[in-house]
């Protein structure tokens, strides 16, 4: 009925416009898909899947939540070492052994739990696997010779000079020079106290009792102070250094953001149309901001680390310079959007230009300014992690070093958790400050 009222031209116009819109609605996803396919080809996704090392991922994941202890016997000298993660920092001192390792004479018995028992003795080594049998290895002419129930399963690998056994309870390998057993245990090793500490292996209840008791382990200081210092100077985890690194990262972000804002504020007046009537000067100020932003933090960081050397100050200056560009642009835009009436009111009382800026302009732009500065403070905490990796300071450096050694993945996990907590803390701090300072009760 209604279509009779519509003119044919309008109907065809609407139909065409609908058809065009529908084509666009189809074309945009198609273009996105085409681009992603092009990217997948140019990034060589197919080759990547072949190169991917999923065994690395397994190592990484198991290190994230567990640790291993190496029980190693040197086959030439017969010397036995028990070391957590095989590190010298985690080596058990002479006379101290975990309770699952027993030594009598030259016989070492390692109880891996659930009936898995490894024995090193003068003749070689034996590994009892429940449900399978005994794996017996004896050196003959310097080479390990394996005797085990046939057929040999896939989890025992026999090479010319080495026999390795992989079980869920632990790993075992016998080579010409040494025999080694790895036992996996959940948790991060020696997180509180290292083996050389008098407090190692004590339960929380024992520690709590020690903290309140008067019997001092170390006569020079109280037990609580001893605990704090043993924890703080833990050589395996270096809690003290890590805390410093976190502080350095936050310091870089704070100094960089605030200094950038303080420098940009006066400069932004030069770039605002309503405060700088001189066209060429305004143009120059804007180009300076554009240049600083265009050069980008990466390049500033590189240039500055040549001049100032590695450390947190270099990172802070790099952040400050980069942010001066961004803040300059944003502040000058905020200045251009202010209400002139308030300035006129201040002017009518005979205020000079500095007073007009203080009482007419600043109160108007403070909320915008503060919210941007706080937002940048939070986002710079993240950038400071990356910049720290380049300039050599803060938690970013520790993280990249731990990753590059490709060994201490539990430390990587620890740093990652700390970084995420740090960023979240800064996020809520900046959110809280924003609410207090901008929407708050005007305090």
């Amino acid at each position, binding site marked *: 009925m209604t279509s009779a009222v519509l003119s044919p031209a309008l109907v065809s116009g609407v139909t065409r416009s609908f058809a065009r819109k529908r084509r666009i609605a189809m074309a945009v996803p198609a273009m996105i898909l085409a681009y992603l396919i092009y990217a997948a080809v*140019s990034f060589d996704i197919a080759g990547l899947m072949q190169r991917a090392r999923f065994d*690395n991922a397994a190592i990484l994941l198991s290190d994230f939540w567990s640790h291993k202890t190496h029980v190693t016997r040197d086959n030439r000298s017969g010397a036995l070492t028990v070391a957590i993660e095989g590190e010298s920092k985690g080596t058990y001192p002479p006379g101290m052994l975990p309770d699952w390792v027993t030594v009598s004479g030259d016989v070492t018995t390692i109880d891996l739990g659930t009936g898995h028992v490894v024995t090193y003795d003068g003749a070689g080594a034996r590994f009892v696997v429940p449900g399978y049998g005994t794996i017996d290895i004896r050196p003959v002419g310097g080479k390990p010779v394996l005797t085990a129930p046939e057929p040999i399963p896939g989890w025992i690998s026999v090479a010319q000079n080495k026999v390795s056994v992989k079980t869920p309870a632990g790993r075992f390998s016998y080579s010409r020079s040494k025999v080694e057993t790895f036992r996996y245990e959940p948790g991060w090793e020696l997180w509180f106290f290292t083996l050389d500490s008098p407090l190692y292996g004590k339960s929380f209840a024992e520690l709590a009792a020690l903290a309140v008791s008067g019997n001092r382990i170390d006569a020079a200081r109280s037990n609580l102070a001893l605990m704090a210092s043993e924890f703080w100077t833990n050589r395996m985890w270096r809690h003290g250094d890590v805390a410093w690194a976190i502080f350095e990262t936050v310091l870089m972000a704070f100094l960089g953001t605030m200094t950038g804002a303080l420098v940009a504020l006066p400069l932004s007046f030069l770039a605002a149309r309503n405060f700088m009537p001189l066209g060429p000067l305004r143009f120059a100020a804007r180009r300076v901001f554009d240049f600083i932003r*265009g050069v980008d933090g990466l390049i500033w960081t590189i240039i500055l680390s040549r001049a100032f050397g590695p450390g947190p*100050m270099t990172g802070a200056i790099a952040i400050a310079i980069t942010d001066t560009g961004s803040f300059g642009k944003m502040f000058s835009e905020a200045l251009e959007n202010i209400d002139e009436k308030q300035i006129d009111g201040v002017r009518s009382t005979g205020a000079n230009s500095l007073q007009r800026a203080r009482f007419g302009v600043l109160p108007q732009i403070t909320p915008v300014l503060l919210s941007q500065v706080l937002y940048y403070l939070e986002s710079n905490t993240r950038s400071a992690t990356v910049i720290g990796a380049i300039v050599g300071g803060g938690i970013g450096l520790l993280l990249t070093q731990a990753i590059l050694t490709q060994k201490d993945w539990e430390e990587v996990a620890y740093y990652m958790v700390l970084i*995420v907590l740090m960023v979240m803390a800064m*996020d809520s701090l900046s959110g809280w400050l924003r609410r207090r300072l901008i929407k708050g009760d005007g305090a």
Partner: protein
Amino acid sequence: MVDIAFGPEPGKRPDPASASEVYLDMVRRKRMYGGILLVLFLALLASGWMLADQRNAGGFWNGLPQTPDFPAEVLSEAWANRANLPGLLWSYIPSLIETLNIAAVATLIGALMAAGLSLLATRGLARWPRLIPVFRRTMDALRAVPEIVIALVLIFVIGGGPVPAVIAIALHTGGALGKLFSEVAENADLKPVEGLSSVGATWGQKMWLGVIPQVAPNWVSYALLRLEINVRASAILGFVGEGGIGHDLKLAMQWGQGRYDEVVAIFLLLFLAIVAIDRVSDSYRHRLVKGTL
């Protein structure tokens, strides 16, 4: 009693009868608090700089005169070999394209992820309203993890190249854009959605036809802003990890003298690319928000 409630010195208290005195007293107190805060803040800043200076390998005052040395050295060497520059610029174009591709793909994937997450996390639009906090916390967690952490771990697992950087930046973008997208979607008009529900549309249809057309300009504008950020992030990740022009820059820098013409070529390309992208996205965003597109 009165003394306890109002303080021991009644004479110092402003007389409520004279309004101007009360007002001035309040202003003075406010200024004093503001001044104290400002002084504290400046003291914090100054001591922070002093501390950072101490922890740095080279001091500030030693470093300051040296700042122009490195750029001067680089530029003078590049100037001596300026005949190479056009060729070098041309030879680094593929790396630059890789860096830009990393940023673009990551922004695209991140924005798609953010679109889904934000609709699921917006009150009034969510498919499962009870799960809103879950999706919000997911976005917070994605935002909190710095790109470099994910990138370096992924390099260990799947090897070098652009893909770890793409995944790292995309995850972070998903979290960061998700928050902004959700703020936009909260302000969307619900009438089209109600209209679509009345004709029996599914959730997907309601979102695609009722919400997306409303929020698209703002979403695209935020995504473009993110693209600018991601181009920089992609260059930095290349420098720290692998892939793109950042990696070439690291190699040229490690070589040092003799390859400074390459450093200059890379700086120039990076600078021009960043400025060009900022410019294009700036004007496009302007048009999007003003609604002339």
